[in-house]
């Protein structure tokens, strides 16, 4: 254990990132500062699209990618530095995170050279936004049970079926879709990972209103939608392997940026407790202390993983379980601190306060991207090597 000294190279990287972020977010992009966080995905959306493009133009998207694809080949420590500086500067919720964080690593790992040439530049420049076509009405926790079908016909994939809970489908130009392409193959070997353009007659997007009254996710209907035959990542039938690898990317270095967001949310809860006197209540003091303890647990765990990587079986699931549960509980604590005021919205008809938005949004943290129950199964089965649940 040691106090890592930042190398001269990393210090220079930090200074460069900080200068650029400060200049932009206190200058032309001040209006998107701190906007579009969890639960507020619609805030200043168009402005955040422009922000994504500006980041791309200045070389601050895809920083971990190889230089040949427009990246900076930034080391893990530099990625962390960037997320720290981004949070410090009040960088808005990214609209390109699905492309940058999920699609690009997947294409880099499994894609053809042609796919890299076709899709990475649009992600890098912020001109092509992506959404994730995973869950279906009958395939949530049981993701392998997807029923959306695709068949090759005349050099094209023809896709029929339905996805649900598809974040940003109403804004995205592209979607990656897990679908059944090999109906006769056994489970886990019957799926393919397709890249599908959203703007076409065969696709209908229907927003789903959340209990927050806002609408961030959608139902997506595929009715004879098309995709070129070459838009399959990995071989046909290998979709499950690709899809699972992608979920690993989902919990990579970016969780550090999230951690910084959590720290500032916690600070706001403390400030509210001080302001309304709850901080003097001995019971609430204990609860606030416990919340800090668990936040530090999440933080130290995340930092450890930076050294060790998250490849140890079950570790990614432990991380997800920890931070999701912390965030959910912190949301409840914030409401408890506010007491009777907690139920009062910002303004009619249903504009929520920031704390209310977070409280409601954090109800979903222990559900999306694998429920707590699924994470515990992964920890038990992959981490501890316990027998699998019996499957029919």
């Amino acid at each position, binding site marked *: 254990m040691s106090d890592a000294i930042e190398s001269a190279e990393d210090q220079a990287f930090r200074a460069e990132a900080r200068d650029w972020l400060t200049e932009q977010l206190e200058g032309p992009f001040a209006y998107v500062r701190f906007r579009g966080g969890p639960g507020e995905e619609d805030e200043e959306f168009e402005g955040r699209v422009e922000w994504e493009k500006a980041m791309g133009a200045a070389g601050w998207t895809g920083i971990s990618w190889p230089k040949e694809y427009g990246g900076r080949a930034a080391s893990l420590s530099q990625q962390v530095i960037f997320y720290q500086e981004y949070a410090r500067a009040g960088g808005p919720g990214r609209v390109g995170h699905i492309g940058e964080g999920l699609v690009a690593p997947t294409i880099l790992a499994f894609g053809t050279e042609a796919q890299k040439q076709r899709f990475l530049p649009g992600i890098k420049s912020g001109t092509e936004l992506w959404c994730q076509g995973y869950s279906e009405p009958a395939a949530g926790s049981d993701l392998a049970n997807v029923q959306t079908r695709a068949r090759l016909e005349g050099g094209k994939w023809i896709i029929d079926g339905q996805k649900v809970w598809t974040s940003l489908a109403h804004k995205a130009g592209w979607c990656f879709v897990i679908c059944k392409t090999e109906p006769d193959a056994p489970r886990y070997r019957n799926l393919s990972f397709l890249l599908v353009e959203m703007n076409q007659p065969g696709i209908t997007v229907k927003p789903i209103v959340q*209990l927050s009254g806002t609408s961030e996710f959608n139902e997506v209907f595929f009715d004879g939608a098309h995709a070129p035959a070459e838009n399959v990542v990995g071989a046909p039938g290998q979709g499950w392997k690709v899809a699972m690898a992608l979920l690993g990317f989902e919990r990579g270095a970016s969780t550090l940026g999230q951690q910084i967001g959590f720290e500032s949310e916690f600070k706001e809860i403390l400030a509210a407790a001080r302001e309304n006197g709850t901080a003097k209540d001995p019971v609430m003091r204990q609860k606030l202390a416990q919340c800090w303890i668990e936040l530090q647990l999440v933080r130290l765990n995340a930092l450890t993983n930076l050294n060790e990587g998250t490849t140890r079986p079950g570790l990614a699931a432990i991380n997800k379980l920890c931070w999701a549960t912390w965030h959910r509980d912190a949301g409840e604590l914030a409401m408890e601190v506010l007491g009777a*005021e907690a*139920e009062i919205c910002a303004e*009619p008809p249903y504009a929520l306060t920031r704390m209310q938005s977070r409280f409601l949004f954090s109800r979903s943290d222990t559900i999306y991207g694998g429920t707590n129950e699924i994470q515990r199964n992964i920890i038990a089965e992959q981490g501890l090597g316990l027998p699998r649940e019996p499957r029919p």
Partner: protein
Amino acid sequence: MDFRFTEDQLIFRDAVRDFLDGECTPAAIRGLIDSPDGGAVKFRTALAELGLTGLPLAEEHGGLGMNELDAVLAAEECGRAAVPGALFDSMAVAGPLLAEAAPELAAEWLPKVATGEATIALGHALNPFVLDAGIADLLLMARDGALYAVPRSTVTLTEAPSVDPSRRPAKVQWSSSAGQKILDGERFEALWTLALDRAALYAAADMLGATQRMLDMSVEYTKNREQFGRPIGSFQAVKHLLADVQVKLTFARPVVYYAAYALVNGLPQRSIRVSHAKVAAADAATLGARRTLQVHGAMGYTWEYDLQIWMKRVWADAGCWGTSAWHRARIAGAILAPGTDLGPGRTWAA
């Protein structure tokens, strides 16, 4: 102690339940959710047919002359059906308070409350926002150790939308000179605490009913929703989530009923029994909201799915008429007071 309710009490509860099952459906609630009063007046008027609006009021005021033990079961049913409006604050807290504090005003107003024509709103320091102030005909407001009856026409309301879209809280600005002082001194302290105890009891009962409803919906959902080729309710990881709620709810129910009993019989420990009830019910309800949402997955997170009606109701209930922290502090104050008679000698005592 005999915790059994009488045949008559159960019959009345069943009548309320049957009526609400037919009338106060999620579709009916949603249909009125954007109306100015969120449906409070419509359901108040409908429930008057059953006599519910006069349940704890004296017969001379057109009520049924029933007590808190009768009313607690009805409050539970109203939570189970998510009846819009602060009906119990008006008829079961403000009503008896007015009867005890100001007989002439009671003679004027309570017959109208009993028939469902009038609503009385309550402004208590624990609730910075007054529920149903917008439809109230009379407001009972406390200030500087005194209680005032204030006509609605003299107050200024600022509506404050609630996270629970069926609720209608408002900030009330009022002047003492526009109202009639009906209580002060020690009598104010005593009756205002009694009012708080009644209100907290009914909030607790409301949470019991709402939690039962969320649990019922979740049992139904997890029996039918299939993943990995079988109902998700067959997975231990899922069924245990709901079993814990059943445990909390089962434990909370006698606590709430005992608090009602303590109110009816004026037991010396009345207030801490009520506080216990509010804490136990809020614990069951907040766990219930969290767990039932979890077993529904993303479905429970949607506006369209009805679970949100009850989740938002218990989140609001938990913060009103004293938070759990406030009630725990009240219990601590009482049991730690010098000379408090606790211990084995009290096991079978009331």
